[in-house]
């Protein structure tokens, strides 16, 4: 039995402890937004937040999630309202879209750690995610835009309201 919090909801699951978090999310919990791309921690399509840290869910046995707080693409916001998702729409980032859940999660983590990233910061943080459609220039624009949205939110709300 493994217990953890998923998108704010407590979970108790009886699954083999070695099963990667990715497949528990996709198959046991039917949250299919997190994608299988390579299975060896190379592509980032399976990226989720574990205790706020960007984590390749294909490499994390479910047992290691015990007691942690997991957030997937589905848990970032209601209806795509997260500032990063909004920026993704405004910059029209996705093409095939398969890698984008992972890209968005990585970008959320980057901006949480570094609210005003430079291009070099983006290179460093986002090179963990592969996109075969070549949306990299659009992702770069969207991250800068999301940083702008977050700054604006912070100033309008005077810090009273954080990101979801």
């Amino acid at each position, binding site marked *: 039995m493994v217990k953890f919090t998923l998108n704010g909801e407590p979970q108790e699951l009886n699954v*083999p402890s070695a*099963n*990667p978090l990715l*497949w528990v999310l*996709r*198959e*046991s919990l*039917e*949250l*299919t*937004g*997190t*994608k*299988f*791309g*390579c*299975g*060896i921690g*190379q*592509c980032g*399509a399976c990226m989720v937040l574990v205790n706020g840290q960007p984590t390749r869910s294909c490499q994390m046995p479910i047992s290691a999630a015990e007691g942690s707080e997991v957030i*997937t*693409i*589905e848990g970032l916001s209601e*209806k*795509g309202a997260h500032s990063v*998702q909004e920026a*993704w*729409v405004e910059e*029209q*980032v*996705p*093409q*095939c*879209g*398969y*890698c*984008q*859940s992972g890209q*968005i999660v990585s970008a959320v983590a980057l901006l949480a750690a570094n609210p005003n990233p430079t291009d070099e910061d*983006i*290179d*460093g943080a*986002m*090179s963990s*995610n*592969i*996109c*075969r*459609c*070549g*949306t*990299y*220039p*659009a*992702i*770069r624009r969207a991250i800068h835009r999301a940083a702008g949205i977050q700054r604006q939110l912070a100033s309008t709300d005077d810090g009273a309201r954080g990101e979801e």
Partner: protein
Amino acid sequence: MKDQHSNPIEDKGITKNLSRRTFVKIGVLAGTGLTLGVSYRVTKGPEAPLTDAVFSPSAFLRIDVDGSITVMVAKSEMGQGVATALPQLVAEELHVPLSQVSFEFAPAHPAYGTAMGGMQLTGGSTSIRDSWLPLSEAGAKARWMLREAAAQRWGVAPDQVQMNEGKALHPDGSKLTYAQLASAAALLDIPKDVPLKGPSEFRVIGTPAPRLDVPTKTTGEAIFGMDAGPSDTRVAVVARSPVFGGVLRAFDPTGALEVDGVDEVVELKSGIAVVADGYVAAKEGRDLLTVEWADGEWSTLDDTEISDLLKEAADQDGATVREEGDIDSVLTSDREQTRAAYTLPYLAHATMEPMNCTAWVRNGRCTVWAPTQFQNAPGLVGGGARQVAAKAAGVSADNTVVHTTFLGGGFGRRAEQDFVREAAELAGKVDGPVKVIWTREDDMQHDFYRPASYHDLSAILGVDGMPEAWCHRIASQSILQRMVPSWVPDFATNWAGTSDPTSTEGAQDQPYHIPNVRVTYSKVDLPVPVGFWRSVGHTQNAFVVESFIDELADLAGQDPYEYRRELLSEHPRHRAVLDTVAEASEWASPVPGGRARGIAVAESFGSFVAEVAEISIQDGQLHVHKVWCAIDCGMVVNPAIVRAQMESGIVYGLTAALYGRINIQGGRVVQSNFHDYQMLRMRDAPDIEVILLPSQEAPGGVGEPGTPPIAPAVTNAVFALTGQRIRELPIQIV
């Protein structure tokens, strides 16, 4: 995987051979308004039934009584934007803003066979070109009928009624919405011909409308093949022969069956499937199978043997695919010849979503959920997912339904239906729905690769430095030969016999004005499966032609841009993109220190693209800093999508130029995953500036044409910087 099984549409029994006319009338006879029999929605489960009455003047368009407008997209959305651009075509003629239109993926059905030969296929950058007329007509006919319905309601002449923003307007200012008119319109005869708008009247076409698929692709809701299928779908992973042409000799399922969650082990034509309650168990079971393969005659094949065979073939007389002037007498004169050999490797597609397919066979019916580029084909052509699945499952095509999901990348890989065949065969042998998931390793080692090729180039320059003779000898495997059914005799299809345009495109039609030209093709038979890889023959031939012309410019002591320009005097569209990209990149101005620029131009799939790359080399590492790209793709439906496709094609081609190589050792593919088949990542992605040339020419493709010029633009820049001429990809800096 959570929806219920409900009302599979084939159970309505009305999917067979419906004419467009029948589409409309079925619903009327049923007394429920107008229901389009072959419609469905892509959900996680099977088809949701259509509940509302609809007005459906063509298979491509449906207007429900609530006024919702749905375009059936019969092309596969793999990132290239068809699920937005095709609805734009309909919205334009229907006089509605795109925001009022939604889309669904069309089922596999002959009504949607707009591609070559009546195929329902997405490939060759043809979607806009072959959908323009049918979708524009669908919108225009619907508008005509809605206007007629309004005129009848009001008792005025149709030309008194204005159609605008989803409403009919009476001269006195009163309005009727499309929702109010749909039922009445559905009872009218469908007009044969209606006039279409001219470009000056376009309000939706030509605008950078937001993509209709972007919202669900930012929330994780978009359903790809991996995500599709009923909730009780089991998962299978398949063991396949690692050696090309190998066959199964024996296997022992014991190890697999001992894995918790593994249900059964099933022998298939392509290998052995381990079926389990989930992916982890299925893969573990697959890895624990004991299998003995008979490797066959190719078990020692390797890169050296392949390159020797290619070179040998190029040295022999191939099929002449272009001959102008008197090349023999020029080449056999004692004048100085320039000769160079170029080689390109096999490439895998490496779509982000590994191959997968879900199938369910019961009661003589087969339902497939597939991220496929090829849904349906007329009987004689064959090869569509519907035909392939039907045959593999042992049911009729009429009883086979194919649901196309979003594709996590296609690039030509998903034009092959091997992954559908396998899933359907398995589904025919087990109970309940089953999804075959390919591991990344399976995907990379059982691809249909961009063919490796060898190119022998020779040229003679005139006294003015301009080429007087150009001879290009190409050797590679033939993609079309592999695809042609074996019963077709060689003489019936010349491309299956000695030549293959997919191997020589971009070479046989290279545009430079040269009086004596010969291009030959030598077909090489090898067991490596070869297939269509984004821009196909142009991937190799643009690199070769644009590199060799650069060599000749250098030999002539001329600027590579001016040299090309001079040779393209009869090709204004090539020249225009070349001029545009030269101006944008300030070609004539000095390059910042330590950097250099290279240029290349290519026509492919009806579009003209020129690119300039600016590079530097530090510690032996090549950096591509910036790429300028100018495209003339004729009339543009959505400029934002065209720009995105240029960025996409450039990154795809750059990945191949910098890293792409599939090696063959022991008759099998060496590479297995992204650690040894590298992808371009964010830190290596250049800035890209795209310029669209305004054009009233017929629309060209955009999914592929961005790719061909990038490799030579980069390698020509390397030459400009270091003097090293790159004649083999991927690039190795010495």
